[in-house]
């Protein structure tokens, strides 16, 4: 007799426990504004990433097409996986002195792990982390970027 009562009580307890769970689900079912998913590709225009978001390495240029990179190569040394290649060239400046400047700052996006070490160690703060995160490309070569824009030169007053 006792086992039968226990058995039936167990069934009711089981149903009750399931209903408790269902109550939580029902609460969110009827109050969907509590948990709204981001409508991602649709909200692209309004989507703002956090300022510190590490999407890619970029080199900001000012309106005169000038950047701050001296071509010192510190970022290249600090990058753990060889995502950065610095190609420098020597020029002769107005005073007739020989000088090494940056020719190409090559950035392999496909190899980058977004560790931020290059940005952190760059002595002239020439590179920063950009907010773009949609990095799907049709071919691999477009993932290799030259960060300094064509025809750009170094800003005045940046110490070498």
């Amino acid at each position, binding site marked *: 007799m006792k086992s039968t009562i226990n058995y039936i009580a167990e069934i009711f*307890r*089981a149903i009750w*426990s*399931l209903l*408790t*769970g269902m*109550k*939580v*689900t029902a609460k969110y079912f009827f109050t969907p504004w509590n*948990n709204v998913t981001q409508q991602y590709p649709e909200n692209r225009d309004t989507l703002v990433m*956090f300022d*510190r*978001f*590490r999407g890619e390495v970029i080199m900001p240029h000012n309106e005169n097409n000038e950047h701050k990179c001296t071509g010192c190569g510190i970022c290249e040394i*600090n990058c*753990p996986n060889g995502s950065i290649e610095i190609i420098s060239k020597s020029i002769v400046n107005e005073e007739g002195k020989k000088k090494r400047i940056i020719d190409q700052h090559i950035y392999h996006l496909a190899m980058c*792990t*977004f*560790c*931020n*070490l290059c940005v*952190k160690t760059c002595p002239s703060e020439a590179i920063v*982390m950009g907010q773009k995160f949609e990095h799907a490309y049709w071919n691999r070569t477009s993932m290799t970027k030259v960060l300094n824009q064509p025809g750009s030169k170094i800003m005045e007053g940046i110490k070498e």
Partner: protein
Amino acid sequence: MAEIKIITTDEIKTDEYLVNMGPQHPSTHGVLRLLVKLEGEIVHNVEPHVGYIHSGIEKMTEALSYPQIIHLTDRMDYLSAHMNNEAVCLCIENALQVEVPERVKYIRTIFDELQRLASHQLWWCASGMDLGALTAFFYGLRDREDILDIFEETCGARLTLNYSVPGGVMFDIHPNFQSKVKAFIKKFRKTLPEYDKLLTGNIIFQNRTKGVGVLSKEDAIAFGVTGPTGRASGFSCDVRKHHPYSAYPYIKFDEKLGTDGDSFMRWKLRMDEMWESLNIIEQLIDNIPEGDIAVKMKGVIKLPEGEFYQRVETGRGEFGVYIVSDGKKNPYRVKFRSPGFSNLFTINHIAKNWKIADLVAIMATFDLVIPDIDR
């Protein structure tokens, strides 16, 4: 004591057969292959085969400088990324005998606990899914999103944080950090009881986990099982309590201990740990001292000759970093003691004579992260 031996085909009795669970099985949470010897539905032997996602991180570190090593440790136990980072940083700081500012200690500890919460949330939802509760998966991920947003705002990454650097942290906390964490705690204190209502009290769930896969305290110690899995068996092994680091000496918290050591206890223990993490963060969040976020380190960090070890408590147990240095800028040898590896190899011992569905329940409550096992 269980020992793992290679099964050859002539050893298999007529009624037994071998089944591969994994490497592409949804409930192994990654590429883990379990070679299961079954008789009908009864498990007779489980043989874990690891190495499918071996990335050679320990070897890679020998070619990298010390600040560069840290970002690789994100990729081992990716759910405890910050604790792994911190372990390497603490090891380097101990070797160089650098005292980090108080502010750094507080920030690191808050991040540890947030990361532990995020890790346990993901464990909760994923193991709920393993046991047939798909709703849990969405609820857990929804709440985890809040923590990841906090991480993203302060350090720019959601999963692979790389936030600790030798001597401090990479960025100062974001001005919104404190208010956001407090808002999160307030919200999560309301949603955490829902987790219990949804699953812990659920009769199907209880029947599947209570008494299943009992790991005794003696075995937990013998196998070196740490973390919530070991504590559920009553093995007091919390590194935060026994070898406190960062800001853990300054705060009061309980080390939760279980008694039964079954799957339900492991489940319950992690739920309790989430409450405890909330308490820890609340003690720290208003008291972050002012100060620097890093001590100035040399451009090229060279560790003195010798051997250095540091352990931390991650979401899964004791994580250890062992660095052998020969005085150069790269380590001579690095060894990571990962909690998942020791925890996994008890599985043959405790899953024996249970049904194959119970093996899934045991795996779910073990909280395995496969890159952590393989490194």
